[in-house]
């Protein structure tokens, strides 16, 4: 067994016609690229991990080793303990941010699916020409600058005279006095400002899932749906009994991707609501950013925050790969 596998290996490299020259070329070409990955990806990851166990502020004198040690002492898992149970302001805001980030994600995912799935089915049912046009327009917000979209939504949500307020008035509803700044308007435990951010984000983002679902629908064999129609199934039955089960894997996968990206939304929180009112839209990424770059606090604490977010995302990424690996056939 051992010998035969060794022998096999030899044969492969023979048939690969690998001369020493070619091997040398491969190594020398890849070396700079790998060094680069080492410097700008691997090294920063390790640095972040190590930093999360120190109390670190760049202006303080540290040791030769990345400025850690010295006046930037090793604190073990104190940063993590502080984040989970501490009473410092950053830790308290961060715990709120964790809650808000999950709330945001929990609202974005169902809203996104409720819009994109039916829309994809409708889109798939119309003629090719219109389908392309509609799809292109629905996708427009996803390719647009988030910053410009925030400006757009600040006009939509402008108090009193914003487009949304005017639309509310036009259909006889009373718009809220302030869409983004009133901490006391809460629906079913969800602050109004958070709802507004969810709507704006889903508007910006739904195009991705939509085009993915349309593509997945197109790959469902036509015969299956035609057979259902011939058997007298209604459009509703066709949707629930044919389309939904066959799209299950796609929906699952897109859901994981949507969750991963929702956990990392930044621009809209930083610019539209600035985490407010009263930290009601403070998120994890915003906390990490503000703690590190706005308040220039203990960067070790920021690093610990990013590790917590990273671990959550890593678990989701592993889930995503597991779903990807499952065999699938119609």
């Amino acid at each position, binding site marked *: 067994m051992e010998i035969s596998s060794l022998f096999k290996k030899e044969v492969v490299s023979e048939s690969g016609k690998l001369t020493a020259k070619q091997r040398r070329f491969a190594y020398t070409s890849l070396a700079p690229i790998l060094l680069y990955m080492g410097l700008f990806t691997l090294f920063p990851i390790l640095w972040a991990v190590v930093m999360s166990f120190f109390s670190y502020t760049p202006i303080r004198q540290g040791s030769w080793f990345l400025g850690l040690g010295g006046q930037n002492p090793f604190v073990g898992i104190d940063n993590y303990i502080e984040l989970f149970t501490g009473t410092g302001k950053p830790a308290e805001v961060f715990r709120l941010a964790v809650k808000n980030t999950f709330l945001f994600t929990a609202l974005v995912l169902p809203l996104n699916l409720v819009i994109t799935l039916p829309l994809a089915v409708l889109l798939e049912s119309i003629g090719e020409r219109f389908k392309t046009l509609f799809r292109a*327009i629905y996708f427009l917000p996803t390719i*647009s600058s988030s*910053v410009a979209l925030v400006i757009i939504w600040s006009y939509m949500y402008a108090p009193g005279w914003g487009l949304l307020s005017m639309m509310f008035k036009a259909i006889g509803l009373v718009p809220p006095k302030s869409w983004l700044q009133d901490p006391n308007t809460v629906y079913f435990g969800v602050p109004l400002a958070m709802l507004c951010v969810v709507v704006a984000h889903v508007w910006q983002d739904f195009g991705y899932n939509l085009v993915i679902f349309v593509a997945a629908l197109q790959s469902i064999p036509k015969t299956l749906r035609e057979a259902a129609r011939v058997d007298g199934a209604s459009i509703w039955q066709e949707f629930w009994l044919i389309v939904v089960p066959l799209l299950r894997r796609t929906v699952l996968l897109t859901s994981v991707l949507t969750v991963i990206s929702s956990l990392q939304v930044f621009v809209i929180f930083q610019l539209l609501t600035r985490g407010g009112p009263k930290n009601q839209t403070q998120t994890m990424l915003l906390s990490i950013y503000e703690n590190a770059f706005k308040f220039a606090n203990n960067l070790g604490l920021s690093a610990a925050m990013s590790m917590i977010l990273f671990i959550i995302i890593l678990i989701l990424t592993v889930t995503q790969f597991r779903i990807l690996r499952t065999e699938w056939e119609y």
Partner: protein
Amino acid sequence: MAASLRKKNSIGFVLGKSGAYAVLILGLVATLLPFFYIMVSSLKTTAELRKTPPDFFPEKPTLEHYTTILTDEDIPIVQNLGNSIFVSLMRVIITLFTSSFAGYIFAKYHFKGKNLAFGVILIQIMIPFQVVMIPNYLLVVKLGLIDSLWALIIPAFVDAYGIFMMKQFIEAMPGELMDAARMDGASEFGIYSKIILPQMGPPLASLGIFTFMATWNDYLWPLIVLTSPEKRTIPLLVVWFQTQHVSNQGLVLAASILTLLPIFFVYIFLQRWIVDQATSSAFK
């Protein structure tokens, strides 16, 4: 066949079809209305912008805000546009080269440690930006790149996703041409530049468009590493406008539209490609 014919003539089918269009058009309006409102608002005079309640359409459309931001010497918008274009193009060129070249090596060479090396590169895809954000900032400070446009370019030389995509594509290319070229005495790099690269138009274009759009719209990293007004990229300018020019909303609107336009322009011509690419990239 008969069943589907019957279906086509039934009232229910016609209602279903028009219902489908009604919902789709509603979605269309919801998608386009915010863009449209901002676009027409940017053509209003300052006085009209202050009017409450505002009119939807401008009474006398004017381009004054556009001419102001493009010509006012206190607003470095031309420079900021130049920065965005420079950084985006540099990143496109460099990413296309490193991705196709590394993709070629991974696809067509067999050597010890290849899987390990590829695994190392894939780590970049798995790592969310915020994990490396703080160390990378400190690194950029150490390298003396703070407040330099190179801080946006140098850390982005290697794009793991690009390498992955190019590897997939090159793997599917037949090896005979390469062998033939080798017989004719072509160097290994010559095979890459003369045989592989010319066949890679479509994937390079896709990757290029995506890199361009991502760089053009990038906000968080430039926000962290750029500080002086003349170094800003366009999204930073818009944000700065929004905080400084509250009194003149027209300028903020015009700047936002100018941020959106280049991408829309690219999109009009390449939308089918961009949407297809976005669709397939989700599942690789």
